[in-house]
């Protein structure tokens, strides 16, 4: 071998020492208790080196999911649209709403929620779905939940493309506040990832957990101000509790920047305060809370994930 052996990347894997004192060197920043004694920095570097894998895995999945259909990319729009139609019929028609802008509210909330739901549920199944990779090839497994979140982001992005059509049609003008969109998307990205990491571990361990989580997440969706709005609640305590829900910040913020914050909730609740029409605004303050929760979850979740990851090959 002509390359200088000293220059080759060296990987040291060391089981957690039970009796002998652990050697502490600075290359090996420890993820303690982790059994994962590839240094954390090294791990992140490795993830960065293999980042192409995220694109490839996501691209492969999207391609095999959509290319076989003749309608191809149109299919992407079909899903959120049909779902929005379902909710629109369910809420607007059944309650005799005259307010057609409501469909836009439903659509935006649903797109955001779908992304969250998809990240979490798919992450729970991602390790098993990629079993042939996980048992045969080494790569940083932390890339798998990222892949699922990115696939969700792609769906979200495509879904957002139909929003302007509705905005024109329903005469809801765009506002300068739309520049906040990347910020909200970034916050949701962090939050989704944070939720995905622990779920990926538990989803692998308990096969039937995804079914249960599907229902829990749907319940969470109805408990969040997605199909209705936060201003419905005049009671301070209830409102406070609602604002503790990290999804609140997301749904409210998306609506506000799309100028839909004050959509009139007639038909849902007669006593609701009617706010002047569709005012625009900056993201809802509780978005900060969502971000904080998301960061905490991401830190703890990825730590937990890298700790458990070493056993994935055996658990499958």
């Amino acid at each position, binding site marked *: *071998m*002509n390359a200088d*052996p*000293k220059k*080759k*990347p*060296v*990987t*040291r*894997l*060391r*089981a957690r020492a039970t009796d002998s004192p652990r050697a502490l060197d600075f290359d090996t920043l420890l993820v303690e208790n982790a*059994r*994962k004694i590839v240094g954390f920095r090294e791990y992140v570097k490795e993830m960065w080196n*293999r980042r*192409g*894998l995220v694109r*490839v*895995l996501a691209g*492969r999945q999207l*391609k*095999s999911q959509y290319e*076989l259909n003749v309608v191809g990319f149109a299919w992407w729009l079909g899903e959120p649209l049909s779902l929005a139609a379902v909710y629109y019929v369910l809420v607007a028609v059944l309650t005799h709403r005259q307010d057609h802008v409501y469909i836009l509210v439903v659509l935006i909330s649903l797109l955001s929620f779908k992304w969250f739901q998809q990240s979490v549920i798919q992450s729970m199944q991602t390790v098993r779905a*990629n079993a*042939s*990779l*996980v*048992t*045969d*090839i*080494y*790569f940083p497994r932390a890339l798998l939940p990222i892949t699922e979140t990115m696939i969700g982001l792609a769906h979200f992005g495509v879904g957002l493309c139909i929003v302007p059509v509705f905005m024109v049609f329903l005469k809801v003008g765009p506002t300068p506040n739309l520049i906040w969109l990347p910020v909200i998307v970034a916050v949701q990205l962090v939050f989704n990832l944070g939720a995905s990491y622990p779920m990926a571990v538990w989803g692998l*361990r*308990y*096969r*039937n*957990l995804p079914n*249960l989580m599907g229902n829990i997440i749907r319940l969470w969706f109805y408990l969040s101000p997605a199909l209705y709005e936060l201003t419905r609640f005049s009671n301070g305590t209830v409102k406070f509790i609602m604002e503790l829900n990290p999804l609140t910040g997301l749904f409210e913020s998306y609506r506000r920047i799309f100028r839909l914050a004050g959509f009139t909730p007639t038909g849902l609740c007669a006593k609701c305060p009617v706010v002047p029409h569709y005012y625009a605004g900056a993201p809802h303050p509780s978005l900060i809370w969502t971000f904080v929760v998301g960061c905490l979850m991401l830190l703890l979740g990825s730590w937990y994930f890298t700790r458990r990851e*070493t*056993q994935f*090959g*055996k658990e499958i």
Partner: protein
Amino acid sequence: MSKRFPAIRAKDLGIKFFLRGEANPTVHSGMVRFLKRKPARREFWAVRNVTVDIMPGEVFGIIGANGSGKSTLLRALARIYFPDEGELEIRGKISSLITLGAGFRPELNGLDNIYYNGIILGLTKQEIESKREQIIEFADLGQFINEPVRTYSSGMRARLGFSVAVHVDPEILIVDEVLVVGDAAFRKRCADKMRELFMRGATVVMVQHNMDVIVEMCQRVMWLDKGQIQTVGAPLEVVNKYLTSRNLPLIEPKPDRADNEVVSGK
């Protein structure tokens, strides 16, 4: 001779599994277990106390009966299983050929799968572009390269998988019994390609049940028995010890081994 670092150094390596005694752990079975305070699992050491240095450029064989921990050890060396005990040090770019065509998507065509598989195995996009022709030629699938992989026979799939994997140009290649696939002609080509790899100085660790191949290709052989090292040493000697213990006919030393081309043999 300058100081050489081993490509792979294992020290007291141990891999354990948990036997759960239930096929599919579920949420409720977890709760039941918790309520009954039953221990969830029993541990089982598939590999233990394995200490070995594999030098760069060495072709290292692992033999042993079924269930002796060969594949587990191989997976540990490929970083798929993390050491539960001891230490493992790996120097260089590693590629594992444990199942051919890991991560193939059956609904995508051969070309797409070459691309995806290449990235998964650690190639960059440019590297795949430059090696693409070689990979296609080596796999020798003709027009089928444009067909979805689900239409392939298992031999064709294996050929495509092997073709991508050997073109990764790894410094350390971990091979688990994959040479048995394909027809004789393809096996011959595989063997040639692997020989080319270790001519270039790649380290190869392989598991084989075909003792002729082991004696032919390896420079050192480890006999693994119930997860423990039984012997490490010269191929013929170790293989014959192993065969003796199992009451199988021994392998005759071949005087013309150096220029013997028959790897693909039976």
